[in-house]
């Protein structure tokens, strides 16, 4: 029989609902697991032990009283530290918010709680979600549960590491350029970036508002579907959240891939890709074909421009979003004689090197004389990138690709050159620029035993098909059942 922390999210919730196990026991098991392996992964920035136990006891009381506590009843989950949690410190991985305690929950946090989940803690991430390795956390780098000298991917590194390390049954991450999918791939778990507009961002600390989206990381596709169902849907507090009805994702997982046309973008199998990654992804594609999918070569010709486009658009938006950290109403303030000096020195002291670099790049791209050449140009190329996907997804139900050119790299390997780090996102960022859903499922390991992910990209608001493809693949393979050797 599995230990409690090993249960799937669905199984754990089902047992709580059937009163076979208490939420308090699940939370205790989660806290014990955190205690046992946290020194190896550094996935959490804050652990909310007492608050979590109190919330769990409340679920248990309500279950005992015959109340329906929801599909996530009593299950311990982790939340990326970009997402506000009322009464629990929320830092965005930054020193500038080291002591910030939100007075309200983000909508996604509130919806998880409403579905019965218990938040056990706040997960490590790159500062303001700016990074691909979690090494830009102002506190500590999270580490890969499969190999302690490797990064877990970023920016939602703690969200990936905690799920792979079985510290919580699922987590929330945010994804602006690959920040859910890269950690999912590197940590060997499932991750889903929903369509832009599928999930509310109210209460989520903003990085690049035309790209940011919240989504789940989980141990299998069905758990990710349950999490998405809990958080998706219109929120009157976020006008970019879509009023489209939320499908019952879990009930639509079956059905397989027979008759689906899946595109294989030629530009995503690039020179210099780790051969084992290419081999594992091609093998996964073969499995899908065997299951009845029709594989078609497609082209996304503007892929080579995606990195530049993304890093101009995202940093421009970041430079505006991060203007709010001025030391006046919340956050770090350094002593100063005059107001202007206070802004300048508080921001200088509170932001780390990569955040400053991106603010500077974005401010430059928006500044007089450069706006047309950089920012406007990037927005135009964004249109071309979107059209590539529109074209490919006209006849294809989904696209299947690698997530990253390599498996998890070593801590420190890419920290000297920001551009090399930016290239880690080459196969994920276009999906954000086009606003599409992207799912990652484990599809292999390299010679060193490090996980490899398969990315499934779908049509806008067609998470159902994307999840169905992932579920079909999982049904035929067992990569998602492998556990990190902790």
């Amino acid at each position, binding site marked *: 029989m599995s230990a409690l922390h090993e249960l799937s999210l669905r199984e754990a919730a089902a047992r709580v609902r059937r009163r076979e196990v208490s939420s308090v026991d699940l939370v205790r098991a989660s806290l014990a697991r955190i205690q046992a392996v946290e020194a190896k992964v550094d996935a959490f920035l804050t652990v909310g032990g007492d608050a979590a136990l109190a919330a769990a006891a409340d679920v248990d009381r309500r279950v005992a009283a015959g109340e329906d506590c929801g599909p996530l009843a009593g299950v311990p989950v982790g939340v990326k530290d970009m997402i506000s949690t009322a009464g629990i410190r929320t830092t965005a991985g930054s020193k500038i918010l080291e002591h910030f305690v939100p007075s309200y929950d983000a909508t996604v946090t509130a919806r998880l709680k409403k579905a019965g989940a218990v938040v056990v803690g706040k997960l490590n991430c790159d500062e303001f979600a700016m990074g691909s390795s979690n090494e830009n956390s102002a506190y500590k780098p999270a580490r890969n549960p499969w190999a302690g000298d490797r990064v877990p991917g970023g920016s939602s590194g703690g969200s990936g590491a905690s799920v792979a390390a079985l510290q919580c049954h699922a987590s929330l991450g945010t994804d602006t350029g690959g920040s859910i999918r890269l950690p999912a791939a590197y940590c060997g778990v499932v991750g889903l970036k929903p369509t832009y507009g599928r999930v509310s961002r109210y209460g989520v600390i903003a990085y690049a508002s035309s790209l940011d989206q919240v989504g789940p990381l989980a141990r299998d596709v069905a758990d990710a579907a349950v999490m998405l169902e809990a958080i998706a849907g219109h929120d009157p507090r976020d006008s970019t959240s879509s009023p489209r009805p939320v499908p019952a994702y879990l009930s639509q997982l079956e059905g397989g891939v027979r008759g689906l046309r899946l595109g294989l973008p030629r530009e995503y199998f690039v020179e210099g890709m780790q051969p084992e990654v290419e081999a594992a992804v091609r093998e996964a594609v073969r499995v899908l074909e065997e299951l009845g999918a029709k594989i078609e070569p497609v082209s996304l010709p503007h892929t080579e421009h995606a990195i530049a486009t993304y890093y101009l658009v995202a940093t421009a938006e970041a430079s505006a979003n991060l203007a709010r950290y001025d030391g*006046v109403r*919340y956050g770090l303030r350094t002593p100063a004689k005059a107001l202007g000096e206070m802004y300048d020195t508080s921001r200088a002291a509170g932001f780390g090197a990569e955040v*400053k670099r991106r603010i500077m790049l974005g401010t430059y791209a928006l500044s007089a004389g450069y706006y047309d050449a950089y920012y406007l140009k990037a927005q135009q190329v964004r249109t071309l990138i979107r059209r590539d996907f529109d074209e490919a997804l006209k006849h294809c139900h989904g696209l299947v690709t690698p997530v990253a050119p390599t498996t998890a790299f070593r801590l420190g390997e890419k920290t000297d050159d920001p551009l090399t780090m930016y290239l880690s996102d080459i196969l994920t960022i276009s999906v954000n620029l086009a606003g599409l859903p992207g799912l990652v499922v484990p599809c292999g390991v390299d010679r060193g035993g490090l996980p490899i992910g398969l990315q499934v990209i779908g049509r806008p608001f067609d998470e159902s098909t994307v999840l169905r493809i992932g579920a079909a693949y999982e049904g035929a393979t067992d990569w998602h059942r492998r556990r990190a050797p902790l």
Partner: protein
Amino acid sequence: MYRGLGYSTPVAITREEVERVAALARLRLEPAEVERLTADLGHILDAFTRLGQLDTTGVEPTAHVEVLDAPLRADEVTNPPAGDEALANAPARDGRRFRVPKIIE
């Protein structure tokens, strides 16, 4: 690895430009940071020059992917007037107000 992003001739971004941008971004940078950022931004922008060579004549810019039917809520106050919690994270306060250093010399 990705030839499209290889380095060629550096884009001229000068120390002075970096200082001008830092002032716009309200960041007080140390001389060593200015040095590093001049190199980094030059390096990054240089890798982005191929974007400029792409013909985008007549292409509409995308500011946002379409959010269809983004509904607007009624412009009504739904939350109670902020109590103490709105000031709970203030670095310095004076009763119900945020306290800041003097604005005018």
